[in-house]
């Protein structure tokens, strides 16, 4: 069947993050307001301007057998772990075809990262310089290519409808999920495994982001360093991990009796065309994405109870998003509980959209919004939205509620995803 406007639902979730090795422990950590940030005590970090990061709580090397792990960049290892959880959570018992409830020709994967296999590239460059060309791993290219996580998950689940990797810096994970929604809506696939992943905790990316003045240098207070909306916020904290969901046409999910977490309502996309790294400060670019979301879907502002904000803890970016929400939704913003989960996970770059989609879906499913931690003095301009501070907060217990997951990236990319209770 090739309908062009099919309803899409979320039937599986998976994650491995700085808060936990799966979606349940990640969600528990978020609701508890736990920080996943720690000091970097490795020798290589000693001379860096930034010596804090949010590493994955469970090292992927503990999960993936060594022989397989040595052929996968860490970003692909994390994606594989999250995708396996999501696939099993969706109720599939084997790869497509072997599990007869999903046809490989109707299954896709869309998993993105912002930077790709950067640690593989840098580590193999070290090998080249120190040991010579003959010792460079023959697996280097399939490990470092940015489509590697999507392709490896595709191999694992036997996806033949298409394997894709949109790249838009820190919006990549969200753009991947939006692409997955469209693959199903337009009839190209019935099931899509979609999400984001990143593993860039290495001295070079840290030095580079640090020199851009984009990262917090609060080395003496790792757990308090990521502080979106706080008056003293001074940049993001680098995190690593992956979040992946299983998207499915509502008809396909109903036919196999799958549990449904939420409807994936759709996406709104825009580009700032303002600056290669600075956000458009008035929020007009983000507002354009929100308007496109409303124009492209049947989402009603009155339904939106929660926003998982992009809010990375940078001075300009956090406020541009608040301004855009007010600009587009007016007084409807007053019933939206806004949470910045990066206060706990750090910023997972291309992984952020995946992990925050998992958090968004769980928030409306369980009807509770995770907190934004580390706000000691709320920035007065951020007070124009209802920020969930310090403690988790219950969402409306009755009726249909929706959530927005915002993701923005260097290059001026704005992606807004919407999910709704069913």
């Amino acid at each position, binding site marked *: 069947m090739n309908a062009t406007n099919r309803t899409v639902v979320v039937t599986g979730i998976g994650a491995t993050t700085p808060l936990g090795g799966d979606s349940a422990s990640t969600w528990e950590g978020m609701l508890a307001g736990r920080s996943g940030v720690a000091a970097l005590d490795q020798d290589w970090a000693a001379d860096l301007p930034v010596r804090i990061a949010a590493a994955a709580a469970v090292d992927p090397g503990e999960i993936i057998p*060594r022989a*397989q792990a040595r*052929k996968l960049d860490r970003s692909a290892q994390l994606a594989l772990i999250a995708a396996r959880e999501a696939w099993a959570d969706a109720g599939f018992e084997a790869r497509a075809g072997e599990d007869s409830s999903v046809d490989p020709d109707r299954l896709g994967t869309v998993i993105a990262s912002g930077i790709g296999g950067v640690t593989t590239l840098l580590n193999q460059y070290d090998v080249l310089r120190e040991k010579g060309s*003959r*010792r460079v791993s*023959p*697996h280097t290219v399939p490990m470092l290519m940015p489509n590697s996580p999507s392709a490896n998950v595709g191999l694992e689940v036997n996806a033949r409808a298409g394997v894709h990797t949109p790249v838009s810096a820190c919006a990549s994970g969200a753009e991947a999920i939006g692409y997955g929604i469209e693959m199903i809506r337009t009839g190209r696939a019935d099931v899509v495994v979609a999400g984001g992943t990143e593993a860039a905790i290495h001295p070079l990316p840290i030095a580079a982001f640090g020199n851009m003045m984009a990262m917090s240098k609060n080395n003496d207070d790792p757990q308090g360093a990521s502080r979106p909306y706080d008056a003293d916020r001074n940049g993001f904290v680098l995190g690593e991990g992956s979040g992946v969901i299983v998207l499915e046409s509502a008809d396909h999910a109903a036919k196999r009796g799958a549990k449904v977490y939420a409807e994936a309502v759709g996406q709104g996309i825009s580009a700032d065309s303002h600056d290669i790294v600075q956000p458009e400060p008035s929020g007009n670019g983000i507002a354009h994405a929100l308007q496109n979301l409303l124009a492209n879907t049947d989402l009603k502002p009155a339904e939106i109870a929660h926003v998982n904000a992009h809010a990375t803890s940078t001075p300009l970016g956090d406020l541009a998003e608040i301004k855009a929400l007010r600009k587009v939704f007016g007084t409807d913003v007053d019933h939206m509980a806004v949470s910045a989960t990066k206060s706990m996970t750090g910023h997972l770059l291309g992984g952020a959209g995946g992990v925050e989609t998992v958090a968004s879906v769980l928030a409306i499913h369980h009807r509770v919004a995770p907190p934004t931690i580390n706000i000691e003095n709320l920035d007065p301009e951020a007070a124009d939205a209802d920020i969930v501070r310090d403690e988790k907060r219950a969402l409306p217990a009755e009726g249909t509620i929706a959530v927005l997951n915002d993701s923005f990236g260097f290059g001026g990319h704005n992606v807004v995803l919407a999910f709704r209770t069913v």
Partner: protein
Amino acid sequence: MAATKDEIVKGLAEIVNEIAGIPVEDVQLDKSFTDDLDVDSLSMVEVVVAAEERFDVKIPDDDVKNLKTVGDATDYILKHQG
């Protein structure tokens, strides 16, 4: 000093274990790298490079395709080691 046949098999077994995760006792002369030992074409390049270092031997790319089994590789190394 040149390695003996037994030393070469033992060395190859350790290399295959490291690269493909196959137990050393399963790496026998009659085993095919690809079909029995989970060594794909890219991993075979790793096996060759590791064997070159360990046994002081050069294995040109054109010869690699003839090394189908552990026995093929053992014989090649016995004949060409420095």
